[in-house]
């Protein structure tokens, strides 16, 4: 039997998917053990026990100075920035992308501008954002917006253009106005694609969030990682990275479920 026709069974599929994770953990434990045997004060690869202590300290013990649970306040601060930023970007992406794709005059005016502006590397204008918006929440949210909105605008514009010509003609023969066609024909078909676009841009959004928090912030997941970097606290950095990865995965999963729940016709 050819290799391309061999498939794992149900148990095999789960086992083979879990294997790389287990292997990575085993490699870490072995390497950490070897380093700690040579130097018990090694900070680079802390043991799982040390990491567990750090998690216990950050997540389940109130901070001695502020009384906060550090991990949860960091998570709340970061998620708030991320969701506000991505939410604004999604709304702007729709508000610009739909008319850009649907209305020749509107698109003729704005589309080339959007295309040009989307080439600006957002991190390069981060200093400008700090100068203009100060170093408060606004600059950090704006970085996420400026980083993800251009992609969403262009993506939505493209999705609108991909709608079959026949559909728009048909809607006109049913006497729909431009507005009615935008609201009843174009927008609902573009919404699940917007959700897909947001899923794709979440990676970038996390990047911009952590960059902004690393440079100017007093809380947040990115802030904490860059703060404890000074003390080489790998026992904090590693669980924080794992936690961010888990959050990103859960967000992506939630959006995928949302699409399947709200738009059963999508992808059929």
């Amino acid at each position, binding site marked *: 039997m050819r290799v391309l026709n061999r498939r794992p069974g149900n148990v095999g599929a789960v086992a083979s998917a879990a294997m790389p994770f287990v292997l990575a953990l085993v490699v870490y434990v072995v390497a950490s053990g070897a380093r700690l045997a040579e130097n018990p004060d090694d900070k680079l690869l802390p043991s799982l026990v040390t990491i567990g202590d750090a998690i216990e300290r950050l997540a389940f013990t109130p901070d001695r100075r502020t009384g906060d649970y550090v991990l949860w306040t960091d998570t709340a601060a970061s998620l708030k920035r991320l969701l506000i930023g991505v939410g604004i970007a999604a709304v702007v992406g729709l508000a610009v992308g739909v008319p850009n794709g649907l209305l020749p005059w509107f698109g003729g005016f704005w589309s080339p501008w959007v295309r040009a502006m989307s080439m600006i590397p957002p991190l390069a204008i981060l200093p400008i954002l700090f100068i203009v918006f100060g170093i408060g929440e606004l600059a950090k949210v704006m970085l996420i917006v400026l980083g993800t909105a251009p992609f969403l605008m262009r993506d939505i514009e493209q999705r609108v253009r991909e709608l*079959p010509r026949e559909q728009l003609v*048909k809607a006109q*023969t049913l*006497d*729909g106005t431009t507005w009615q066609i935008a609201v*009843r024909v174009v927008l609902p078909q573009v919404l699940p694609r917007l959700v897909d676009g947001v899923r794709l841009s979440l990676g970038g959004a996390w990047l911009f969030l952590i960059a902004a928090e690393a440079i100017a912030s007093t809380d947040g997941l990115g802030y904490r990682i860059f703060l404890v970097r000074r003390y080489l606290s790998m026992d904090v950095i590693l669980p924080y990275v794992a936690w961010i990865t888990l959050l990103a995965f859960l967000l992506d999963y939630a959006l995928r479920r949302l699409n399947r729940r709200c738009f059963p016709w*999508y992808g059929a």
Partner: protein
Amino acid sequence: MSLIDVRGVWKRYSGKTVLENVRLKADEHEFVTIVGASGCGKTTFLRMLLGEVEPCQGVIEIGGKRLVPEPRADRGVVFQRYSVFPHLTVLGNVLLGLEFAESRLLGRTFGRRRTRNVERAEAMLDRVGLLTSATSYPSELSGGMQQRLALAQTLITEPSILLLDEPFGALDPGIRADMHDLVRELHRELGLTVFMITHDISEGFSLGSRLLVFDKPRLDPHEPDLYGATITFDLPVRESPDVESVVDDLNVKNGVRT
């Protein structure tokens, strides 16, 4: 006076002549079928009647008024594909035309008005035999059912002219025969004027009351795009005594192998 009056219409695309000097008068309730080789401007002609394409030269009048180059509600259309909206259920697709007319802002109706619209839409679905699939999405329907839905969706707004662009081209022969019956009945019941493009000459003869053949009367072999197509045959079909021989004749002329 004729319902549709096409006078000396030309269409050129950047040096390529698609249609030249098309003339046609059609009366109310006619069922005009259009045949011709691929790329001979049949669809361009239909898109002109639709208002989607503007002629370079010449005049199209409908009901004595010059055609505004934009699709309007007096001309319904069914394409071969993409005629229905994938994000709406079968019922939602049929409701759309009614809701467009009643709600300028949202394009949706609620409460008693919606109930009344649903009743009308369900009656139309019943007419085309889709009532049991009212809550399905188009992707769950077969090709023939999708075209039935497209017809119901178009006819709910009561257009006087129905334009069909190879609506049954992708269907199996058996289902196509059912669709022929449906279209013939709807044409008679609703007093429609129908223009239908088809690849299938026998379909053109059996279904229509009049058959148009689009072809290029002149052909420059060194520059095939120089001259465009026009209506080369305009045949009344009803009770044609010898349909078979006319079909054979046309097949030979159009290079169709039988």
